[in-house]
């Protein structure tokens, strides 16, 4: 099914999606980014709705694009639900047939679209004489014919993900490949086996695979399939092969493609896009830094608050008339602490990873710009990606901000209770 065709030339993906080049590129990409990869809850919201707005700004209105309009509300609704879904909802404990999963994940979009579900979990530490490393379990469930079975379970380590990414980049030099989490965290403790670090990485790897799966072209990449399905020895021997036949073919195809299309010189658009990417990258980096800083400040605030409450209890021990009042103030402060903790976890679960992801994306894009020159595909990918990720991010921020307002509301509730009890005395 068009595996060889999966090069940068023509994103003529599966039959269901062949709609003609430009439109297909936008529409299908729109759909794919809009869908959360099976239960990848918090990162997802299918902000496709306004995407149709951006599409209409380019003069291509395909029937499929209009279809999306009808689905707008459904997707919006779904996105809210999705954000509440647990990332690990596809754990083996739940019913496992892909079809039943489609039904469970109640999105009202094109029903046959999602046929590949991937989860990354269970990090495990392996110690050998040479090194220690972590592997992650990857479970794939699919209804696709080209897969030999409907379920696969493999273990991969970070190096393997890097390999996959390289392969994808080789095979599709003009597409935007989803980012991987960084090798190390430069600032803070460089503790590779720290629990938080492992968890953050696991989530990012999960997102990575799902984005590849959702991408209309990348999802049919052969190396991707091998990554998901090959058992340990099979996989390592495959990796050892030099640039395989496929990638060699890919390279020559790419060379042909370049010579055929030539470098279209659209200097103004190129400059504009370049400018945008540069500024965007700057800003998103700042936002990343600011968000991390806010998290840090909140943590310190929380630490102080934790000491603040108990003092009132201590005081109440030496008072008679004031004891009750003091105790209620103390309990309010404690509730405030809990609300703050909730807010912080919401922040770190949802906003921080997404912002960071886009930092990586933008870095990648800067490079892509330089390497790829301006090809139609890149532009197309960029536009769709750009419009979409902004939706995505905005919805994400939305959720975070509502977490804030929730926190504030909770605070109010507690303090109001407090007020009532005070005035009662």
């Amino acid at each position: 099914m068009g595996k060889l065709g999966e090069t940068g030339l023509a994103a003529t993906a599966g039959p269901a999606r062949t709609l003609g080049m430009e439109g297909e590129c936008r529409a299908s990409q729109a759909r794919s980014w809009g869908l959360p990869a099976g239960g990848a809850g918090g990162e997802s919201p299918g902000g496709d709705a306004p995407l149709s707005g951006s599409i209409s700004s380019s003069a291509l209105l395909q029937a499929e694009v209009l279809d999306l309009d009808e689905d707008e509300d459904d997707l919006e609704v779904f996105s809210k639900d999705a954000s509440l879904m647990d990332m690990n909802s596809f754990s083996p404990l739940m019913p496992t047939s892909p079809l039943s999963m489609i039904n469970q994940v109640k999105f009202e979009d094109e029903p046959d679209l999602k046929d590949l579900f991937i989860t990354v979990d269970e990090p495990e530490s392996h110690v050998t004489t040479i090194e220690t490393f972590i592997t992650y379990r990857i479970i794939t469930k699919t209804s696709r014919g080209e897969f030999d079975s409907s379920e696969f379970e493999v273990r991969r380590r970070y190096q393997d993900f890097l390999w996959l990414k390289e392969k994808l980049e080789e095979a599709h030099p003009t597409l935007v490949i989803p980012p991987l989490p960084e090798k190390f965290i430069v600032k803070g403790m460089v503790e590779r086996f720290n629990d938080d670090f492992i968890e953050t990485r696991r989530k990012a790897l999960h997102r990575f695979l799902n984005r590849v799966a959702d991408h209309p072209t990348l999802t049919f990449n052969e190396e991707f399939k091998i990554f998901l399905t090959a058992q340990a020895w099979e996989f390592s021997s495959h990796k050892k092969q030099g640039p395989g036949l496929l990638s060699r073919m890919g390279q020559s195809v790419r060379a042909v493609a370049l010579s055929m299309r030539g470098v279209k010189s659209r200097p103004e658009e190129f400059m504009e896009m370049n400018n945008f990417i540069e500024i965007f990258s700057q800003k998103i980096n700042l936002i990343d830094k600011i968000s991390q800083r806010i998290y840090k400040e909140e943590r310190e605030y929380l630490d102080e608050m934790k000491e603040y409450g108990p003092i009132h209890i201590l005081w109440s021990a030496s008072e008679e008339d004031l004891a009750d009042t003091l105790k209620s103030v103390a309990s309010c402060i404690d509730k405030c602490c809990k609300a703050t903790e909730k807010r912080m976890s919401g922040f770190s679960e949802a906003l921080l990873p997404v912002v960071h992801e886009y930092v990586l994306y933008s870095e990648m894009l800067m490079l892509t710009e330089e390497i790829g020159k301006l090809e139609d595909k890149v532009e197309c990918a960029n536009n769709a990606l750009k419009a979409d990720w902004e939706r995505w991010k905005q919805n994400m921020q939305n959720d975070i901000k509502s977490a804030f307002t929730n926190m504030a509301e909770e605070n109010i509730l507690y303090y109001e209770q407090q007020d009532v009890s005070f005035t009662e005395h």
Partner: protein
Amino acid sequence: MTENNFSLKKIEISVSEAEKRTGRNAMNMQETYTAYLIETRSVEHSDGQSVLTDSLWRRYSEFELLRNYLLVYYPHIVVPPLPEKRAEFVWHKLSADNMDPDFVERRRIGLENFLLRVASHPILCRDKIFYLFLTQEGNWKETVNETGFQLKADSRLKALNATFRVKNPDKRFIELKHYSDELQSVISHLLRVRARVADRLYGVYKVHGNYGRVFSEWSAIEKEMGDGLQSAGHHMDVYAASIDDILEDEEHYADQLKEYLFYAEALRAVCRKHELTQYDLETAAQDLAAKKQQCEELATGTVRTFSLKGMTTKLFGQETPEQREARIKMLEEQIKEGEQQLKSKNLEGREFVKNAWADIERFKEQKNHDLKEALISYAVMQISMCKKGIQVWTNAKECFSKM
């Protein structure tokens, strides 16, 4: 010094202004200080109108002088404290500088509060020196010093000595001392942590302000998202700015707690006075008992206690019966005097305990009332802070959803 003819018709006292001044101090060196304007108005009952009767300028050191005077002349009263001399419990944004306008403003309020407390105290308000403090600008310092109150003040050493050696202080005062120690320690701890919490909260809010700047810059390159980002950024700025007022209000709460922190010291002063009085009494009783015993020994001829007289008698020979008679007579007189003194000291002591305890009860009620109100107002402040937060974030959320 009290004068019953100090009219008790309703008066309003306010410390309305503060002014920086320069002058020459005792060592003839130039110094800068702040002077505070005290205005006194009397309220006519008939029409409720207030008339400015007095207005004069005083500096902090004069307030201190007044308070020290009150401490000496009313040792059984829990004398209201002055606002802090130097800024303590500051967090990073607050200045520790005495000349800082915010500090001066808060001190102005504190001084006004002090005067109002004295004026509303049933006993202190009648004091002449207090009246003169409000009305007589020049010469007041000399008048106070002329009372000689500094001489009457108990020395610190004497007080310390009494604290260690007193045998039978009233139990209630012991408890009160413990209470005031606990109160002081818990309030200072609370104020310290509160200052740290304020510092952190300030940080959280202000960092959000950076969002505002970045959003605004970012919105310049965005098409669809531009407006939403811009307005969201504006809300972030509002959020970041709102913390200043919030924390200023909280400082007032902190000041209310500080007053009671300093009240703890006033409580301890009363306890110390009691210990002194009690110790005085015990010493007098001891002396009297010793004299009585001496007298008895002389009269009966038995020497049970070691005395210098006894030793010298042994060394230099017995005294004559006349000499002995003379000594007995002297001792008997001393004993009589002593008994009188003891009686009056006893009376004094009991009076002191009674009066002091009455004022302490009054103080307890005042404290419970004031602190409860302060805690409630703190809760109200938090509620308003939360409401503001909700509003800002709801607005921001709207902007985000429109992007």
